[in-house]
């Protein structure tokens, strides 16, 4: 068991790798009633083409990682939600582009709940019948998102940017693609990606680290995992430029939704360097589009944006992009003013004073996030799976300079890499 103390945060993290390769992290939160645990595999919607060392290359239907997540909750003895409920735990799961997480939150029966979490994720049970049943449920989930203009404008942007990389494929897939899923394809994906060496268990709350590690050790020792080779995730070459400049989706909306962003060109960076690049990019976006900026106020005064206007940066070693926007009465006018103002800013660079303030705000936001066990678990896992350390963010923020930010501004804001996604009402 390793122990890492983060003095500035007043937090101590415990870590151990199990014999089968499972990474386990425990963050005790003295005084907290709740324990929150996430069990995550580095497997998401983008992993649709892969080869496990010593096995054949395979392509699987779109939406299968998410389908698998749904199906994991079914065990021979019934729905695992019922077991969690009997033990007073609230359970859930989610699938993103590159990970699938299973989780529970509970204030009692922590050892039993932890065992349940580990066991159900390590015990797949798929039948022809239960796979068919799920198609109706997920079909309704897909239908729900199809009616959601915020989701549609977001995915429209990714589709506009990416031509071959599977990040542009909806996480849930389509009714047609999930229609082809069978219990056999589910087992294939399960066996490839749910090996403990591809997984991370994070536990935060009022727990005693050694007790947790002992429970996990004993539990894992009983399961006869054989070593697994590396997983090769196969991606076709993605062009550097955007797929389409502009994509329009028709759906009834009170005002057009406009999301624009820049497709990242600096790829292949991992670990701490990637984290620093992400933080720097987020600072740039905040300095350009944050609600205290002159640009934001100008757009608001021109009635071109509303409170829905926001920005984010999504990154992975193989794809990364910014997404900026919200509801607007006039997307073209919005883009015109934004382009004009940013070009002026890019010549001058950011002011030191604004940079310091934006950094202060980010540091405060980061510390506030530390109050939430859920956020800590999710963020830590996300960073870790990409080779970074969420608890080391403060020193990284402190190391970023005005020059870094100005450099990043000129680097990321590249008009050739711009794509725009709109949702407008049907004509």
């Amino acid at each position, binding site marked *: 068991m390793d122990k890492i103390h983060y003095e*500035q945060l*007043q937090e101590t993290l415990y870590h151990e790798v199990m014999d089968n390769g499972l990474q386990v992290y425990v963050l005790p939160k003295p005084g*907290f*009633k*709740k324990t929150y645990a996430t069990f995550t595999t580095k497997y998401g919607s983008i992993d649709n083409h892969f080869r496990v060392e010593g096995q054949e290359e395979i392509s699987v239907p779109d939406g299968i990682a998410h389908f698998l997540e749904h199906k994991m909750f079914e065990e021979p003895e019934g*729905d695992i*939600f*019922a077991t969690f*409920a*009997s033990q*007073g*735990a*609230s359970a859930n799961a989610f699938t993103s582009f590159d990970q699938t997480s299973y989780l529970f*939150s*509970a*204030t*009692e029966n922590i050892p039993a709940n932890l065992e349940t979490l580990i066991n159900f994720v390590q015990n797949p049970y798929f039948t022809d019948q239960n796979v068919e*049943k*799920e*198609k*109706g*449920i*997920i079909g*309704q*989930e897909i*239908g*729900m998102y*199809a*009616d*959601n203009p*915020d989701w549609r404008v977001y995915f429209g942007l990714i589709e506009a940017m990416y031509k071959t990389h599977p990040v542009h494929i909806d996480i849930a897939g389509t009714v047609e693609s999930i229609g082809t899923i069978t219990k056999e394809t589910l087992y294939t994906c399960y066996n490839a990606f749910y090996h403990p060496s591809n997984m991370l268990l994070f536990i935060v709350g009022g727990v005693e680290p050694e007790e947790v590690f002992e429970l996990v050790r004993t539990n894992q020792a009983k399961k006869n995992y054989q070593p697994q080779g590396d997983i090769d995730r196969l991606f076709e070459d993605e062009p550097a430029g955007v797929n389409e400049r502009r994509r329009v989706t028709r*759906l*009834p*909306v*009170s*005002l057009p939704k406009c999301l624009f962003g820049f497709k990242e060109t600096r790829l292949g960076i991992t670990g701490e360097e990637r984290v620093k690049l992400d933080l720097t990019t987020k600072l740039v976006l905040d300095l350009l589009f944050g*609600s*205290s*900026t*002159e640009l934001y*106020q100008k757009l*608001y005064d021109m*009635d071109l944006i*509303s*409170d*829905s206007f926001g920005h984010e940066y999504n990154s992975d070693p193989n794809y990364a992009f910014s997404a900026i926007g919200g*509801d607007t009465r006039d997307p073209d006018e919005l883009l015109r003013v934004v382009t004009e103002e940013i070009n002026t800013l890019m010549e001058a660079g950011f002011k030191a004073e604004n940079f310091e*303030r*934006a950094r*202060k*705000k*980010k*540091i*405060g*936001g980061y*510390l*506030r996030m530390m*109050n*939430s*066990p859920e956020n800590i678990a999710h963020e830590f896992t996300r960073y870790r799976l990409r080779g970074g350390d969420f608890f080391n963010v403060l020193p990284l923020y402190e190391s970023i300079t005005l020059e870094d930010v100005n450099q990043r501004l000129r680097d990321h804001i590249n008009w050739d890499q711009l794509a725009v996604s709109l949702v407008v009402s049907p004509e």
Partner: protein
Amino acid sequence: MNKILFERGSVNHIRIHVMPTKRFKTFAISVYAGIPLEEKTVATTGLIPFVLRRGTVSYPETTQFRERLENLYGAGFGFDIYKRGDHQIVQLRMDTINDSFVQSNESLLEQSFSFLGEVLTEPVTENGSFRASYVAAEKETVRKKLESIINDKIRYAAERCLEEMFRNDPYRLHPLGSREELAAITPESLYSAFGSWVENANLDLYVVGDTTLEEVTRLVEKSFKIKRTEARQYTPTNVSFETGDVHTVEERLNVNQGKLNLGLRTPITYGDDKYATALLYNGVLGSYPHSKLFINVREKESLAYYASSRYDGHKGMATIQSGIEIANYEKALEIIKNQLEAMRQGEISDLELNQTKAMIRNHIVEMQDSAFEMIAYDFNRVISGKERSPEELLAQMEQVTASDVKEAAQTFHLNTVYFLKGEKEE
């Protein structure tokens, strides 16, 4: 479990509630301003916080106002406007870093109070009124918010169901009012409404963090520059209703998925001794993945991705919501009604009851890990006049039997069935 302990005081008829604790990295501050929910004031009151967040005497320009928050280490500042029973509540929140984690010369708590006090009591003015350009812009913002409800069909269907259910009760009103009332507001009318709001509203101020009642009292005295002459109390909510025919409404919009929403009324409220029983009724029926609605609508029939129920003890009501294939309307409605009937017949197993108790227990206990949730729980006490600590609620809940839930089920009356479907005939 540890007791949730707020120390109480009062300044200028602002009730003060402080929980000193070192458990969090921040100070959580909430101000609740509540007035009766009424057609003639709802839009005006709803607009007030939007204008207050534009500027104060010290930070008149909005960019200055927001820069100030960023300089307080990105203090979280936000507001919500919602209904609680027959009251319209404006909640202002701040979440500020505890100084010990950052290098700061002045106390961040003190600075946060100066800021919040100014927001509430010293907004920027011109010619003895709110700044006209701010009022115009924020009216536009609120108008867009009201119009955008239709973009999110889940929310739209929920709002429409409430409107239909309470078509003869002020509870039908949206907490931001209607577009017509909004359009009629002027800077002058708003400023005068603001004056009487801040004078007459129930005001409750909460702080959770590493501080004391004495310190907060001093900060409120210093930073909230208002003179309130009278103590205010929340009045009880009207929960009477008629148990007539079920009101059925179908509406068409351009949607892929149909939204089925049901509304039920019950005389059991937060202040009622049977409150814990009503929580269990709702839990067994539809709050969890082990509940009847999830199991029967989703897991057994694959009709929906979500099918759940919610109970609101402040108004004495419950709602059920589900997203379904439009053609499956009759079938889904029948299954949902069967679950309501099963509840009335007392078809509640020990397992269902115990699972639900465990889930509610978990929720009540874990609330103590969140400063804002502890504040919200305590505020129920203020607004309902019912003193019930989380420990008491837990104890009451453990006593509830299946036959108690069956008895409570007789008081839940289906009132409205609302269905949102596509424009094409199915």
